[in-house]
């Protein structure tokens, strides 16, 4: 079947396109981009009047919880949430049960996604067996099975020698090592940012240094080894500074942040609001400004979601200390990103770069473009369309979000993924 997408403003930074074009999709591929009113006649037409048409977003940091924690999320619901948010490619972290530390689990994820996933899923394999930080996992076989990067996710590799080996060994395959930077001794028992709010709430704080110490270590190891390092969810001013400095020195490091680190401060946890409990924790206004500056000057390359869906019993019906860390982020990420455009931090093109083109390039997948021959992955978004965040209407099983009730702009009206059209009012 062929589909023509008409009347939209097509923005494809990869081809440096921004204007009114028509896009022809045949089957699961893009067959052409035509000037306005010049596209071929087709049976099926998508009218994108008043909307932007962009490459499907690419999330390089999500948790799909499948296998093992399907009560929190499954590949089916997680990918549905993704397309609802305009994402057509999602990289899933290995902290499943069993851990994705061998090719059998990788193959399971890919096979399950083939059967029931609404979008592309790219597994991230564990760096070490069982995410225990002791022995390297079989990166070669996992890469061959389909892993696009390696990370021990929320369990940082504390042993510096093992981290060195991982960065060295990964060079055989030219794959990315993604680091969750946290010194577990410094953050031990902490649940929110360390500062006056942790004191007034009586909650154990996580100092910014817990993140920065590890960012500094990993940058040193990347410099030593020449391996490709990617710093996950940057949250502090100091981390931004360290990464900026490392890039200036030519070290192979890239970085991401998440919408909550540029939209919220630690104030969001007041009244013991577990919705805003994330790891790393929400920081201060200064850090938020530094993260924005880092996005602006490309110190921070990517906006990822760190989509972390949780069941209500794990997130809400618990004491703050015991509640799970994380935000269900796929369905709000683009609209929260648009705030950066409104604030003049990024241009719309830059936002799209950081949410599709750049992550595709970093992990090495042929996504993030509407070029002829590319997969037919795209999103139709009404930039002025306003909506209120209603977690109960999330397609993700995870209804945990601190953005409940926020009025946002940028409604995703249609997503084309794997050749299928998903549409919403």
């Amino acid at each position: 079947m062929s589909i023509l997408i008409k009347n939209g403003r097509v923005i494809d930074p990869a081809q440096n396109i921004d204007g009114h074009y028509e896009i022809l999709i045949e089957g699961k591929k893009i067959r052409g981009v035509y000037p306005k009113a010049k596209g071929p006649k087709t049976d099926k037409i998508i009218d994108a009047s008043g909307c932007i048409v962009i490459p499907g977003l690419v999330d390089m940091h999500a948790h799909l919880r499948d296998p093992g924690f399907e009560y929190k999320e499954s590949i089916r619901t997680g990918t549905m949430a993704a397309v609802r948010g305009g994402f057509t490619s999602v990289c899933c972290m290995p902290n499943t049960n069993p851990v994705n530390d061998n090719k059998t689990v990788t193959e399971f994820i890919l096979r399950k996604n083939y059967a029931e996933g609404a979008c592309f899923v790219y597994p991230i394999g564990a760096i070490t067996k069982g995410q225990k930080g002791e022995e390297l996992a079989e990166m070669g076989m996992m890469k061959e099975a389909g892993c696009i990067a390696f990370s021990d996710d929320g369990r940082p590799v504390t042993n510096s020698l093992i981290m060195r080996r991982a960065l060295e060994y990964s060079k055989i395959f030219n794959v990315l090592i993604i680091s969750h930077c946290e010194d577990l001794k410094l953050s031990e028992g902490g649940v929110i940012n360390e500062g006056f709010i942790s004191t007034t709430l009586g909650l154990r704080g996580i100092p910014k240094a817990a993140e920065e110490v590890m960012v500094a270590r990993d940058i040193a190891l990347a410099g030593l080894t020449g391996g490709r390092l990617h710093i996950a969810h940057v949250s502090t001013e100091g981390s931004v500074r360290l990464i900026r400095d490392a890039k200036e020195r030519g070290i192979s490091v890239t970085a991401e942040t998440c919408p909550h680190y540029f939209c919220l401060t630690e104030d969001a946890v007041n009244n013991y609001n577990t919705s805003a409990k994330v790891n790393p924790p929400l920081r201060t206004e200064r850090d938020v400004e530094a993260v924005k500056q880092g996005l602006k000057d490309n110190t921070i390359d990517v906006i990822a979601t760190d989509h972390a869906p949780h069941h209500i019993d794990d997130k809400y019906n618990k004491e703050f200390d015991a509640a799970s860390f994380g935000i269900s982020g796929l369905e709000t990420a683009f609209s929260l990103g648009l705030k950066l455009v409104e604030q003049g931090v990024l241009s719309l093109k830059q936002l799209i770069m950081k949410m599709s083109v750049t992550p595709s390039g970093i992990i090495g997948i042929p996504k993030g473009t509407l070029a002829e021959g590319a997969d037919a992955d795209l999103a139709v978004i009404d930039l002025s369309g306003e909506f209120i965040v209603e977690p109960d209407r999330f397609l993700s099983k995870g209804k945990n979000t601190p953005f409940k009730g926020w009025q946002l702009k940028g409604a995703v009206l249609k997503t084309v993924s794997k050749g299928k059209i998903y549409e919403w009012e």
Partner: protein
Amino acid sequence: MMLKSKDLLGIKDLSAEEIINILDTAAVFKDVLARDIKKVPTLRGKTVVNLFFEPSTRTRTSFELAAKRLSTDVVNFSVPASSIAKGETLKDTALTIQALGADFVVIRHGSAGVPHFLSSVLKASVINAGDGSNEHPTQALLDLFTIRSSKENIEGLTVAIIGDVAHSRVAKSNIYGLTKLGAKVRLIGPPTLMPAAINNLPVDIYNSMEEGIRGADVIMTLRIQLERQNRGFFPSLEEYFKLYGLTGDRLKLAKDDAMVMHPGPINRGIEISTDAADGPRSVILEQVTNGLAVRMAVLYLLSGVKE
């Protein structure tokens, strides 16, 4: 005048007027406790549930007796043996208590914020009997009551709080209460035991015991949890006592009529020496007695607050 909220979650949320109101009411109940028959029918027919997730004989007994002196029925919900240990959620526990028909829930929990959570779920009045490192409001109220009993006016007093402020809910509640009533608060201890950004509050911080207690009107020593030593907050109990122990000699640096307070139970020879703990300036046992009167006042005042 009644309290504004149906709950007592912390001193942080109270106004100075509300604090004074509680202290005045406690004075009336202290007279009741001095009588031959120490009981009034004020809250007959009401039910208090003591919900203690952490062991605390003192505070629980104090609440229990205070409730009984007001003629309420008291139920002690002993938690380690209950369903929580079997994995019941906090919300389910709260709803179970609600179904039992409690009018007051006195809650002690190791995690900060649990009383706040219960207050959002329950119609009953929730009284915080200590939550993690957050607050212990009735302890601060009884401390304020004790100070007022001997000093009349709290405004203008210099109060030195010594020790593990970082982990002490008693210290936190006292800082809020004392500063709201116009006292000057000094915190004394090693930097490892000071909470982050505590200087955002109107307090002065001293790492030297001698400098900190010089000229103080009130000296509050805090309990040192013995396991803190193993966690690297200070090198040894001996060194702690040498640097921050309250001894008779050090007490001489304070004002002549300085009061010595401690929330109990005391570690003799660690945070306080025997001569200081048992000396003429010590009001440690008076604090315990005053705790009853203050808790009666809190129950009484909250009983009049309608949602």
